[in-house]
């Protein structure tokens, strides 16, 4: 269920979560298929992004995500249990790209 910036919405996309006003009122229900009109209304609502249906999109390319992981663990290499935690986390991140 990717979160899409309002500027990138396209007709045919389906809402994975309702679009709500600041006070919580539901403006468009979950499952609504977006038309040009609905997209225009959403643009007039002062919302940054909304959830649409579909597989999650990873924000970073895999190589970058793994390089960042290395950086985050740079200070604790060889400390008790940290290599184990790193290994499990690495497998987890790799799994997100399969």
């Amino acid at each position, binding site marked *: *269920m990717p*979160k899409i910036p309002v500027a990138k919405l396209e007709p045919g996309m389906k809402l994975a*979560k309702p679009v*709500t006003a*600041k*006070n*919580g009122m539901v403006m468009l229900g979950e499952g609504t298929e977006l038309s040009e009109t609905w997209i225009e209304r959403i643009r007039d609502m002062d919302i940054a992004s909304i*959830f649409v249906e579909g597989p*999650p999109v990873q924000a970073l390319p895999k190589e970058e*995500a793994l390089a*960042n*992981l290395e*950086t*985050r*663990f*740079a*200070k*604790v290499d060889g*400390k*008790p*249990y*940290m290599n*184990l*935690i*790193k290994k*499990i*986390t690495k*497998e*987890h*991140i790799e799994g*997100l790209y399969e």
Partner: protein
Amino acid sequence: MSNIDPKVLRHKVENIGTLPTVPGVLKRLSGIIEKPRITLVEISAFISNDPALTTKILKMVNSAIYGFPGRIASVSHATMLLGLNVIKGLLLGVSVFELMQKTMNGLYEHSLACAIASRVIAQKKGLKEPEEISVAGLLHDIGKVILMLEFQTEYEAAMNEAQTKGISIFEAEKNQFNATHANVGSWLAEKWRFPRSLIEVIEFHHRPALAKNAPLETAIVHMADILVRARGFGFAGENYVPEVNPAAFELLKLSAADIKDVLKELEENMESAEDIS
């Protein structure tokens, strides 16, 4: 080096309602929460009278904290199900959300992820009240918000010091304030009459071996904090994963499969939790 006296710092934190930098929402809230005998009904009414607050609380209980999406439809149901301490904690959590975004970009995401990871670990350990641990995860770094609000220049200096020297924000805070966000958070939790276990988790989440009353709860949030940083969700003041306390790791006895499960649940919940605001 610091010239801030921790006693003065503590005094400021305990009188948070009178600080000029603290926004109205937190002042109103502290007026409610500090009352010695607030009832479930009063707190439920306070939330229900505010539609925005109601939405935030319901979104929170239906995603990250409770772990059963979509089950709780009303504030009264939520308060009955979760109890006074959890609701009080949630109220504080959602009320400082905007403040967190403003004071340290990414801290809310970090806190939310810790809430989820803490709940999942608590469930794996068979704890009776996983929601209480979840709230502890949500609030564990609240001291950072207070420090940032009241001492922005000094806190930014601490973040810079952490960055340039490659030390943890916890160590850099000690240099700047002679105290840490863990101290500050625990003073606030005490002032707001949170249960002993929550105060202890906040105070010792970076030094879990010192927890006397709630060692398991403290170890859980300590571990959650590390896993969240390992995965790279949010920002908590510096970019490095800190060392896990070996005794805490051994106390938890999580298998590799358990840790994988925590990361998996974190992934699934964070995707939908990000719009809690």
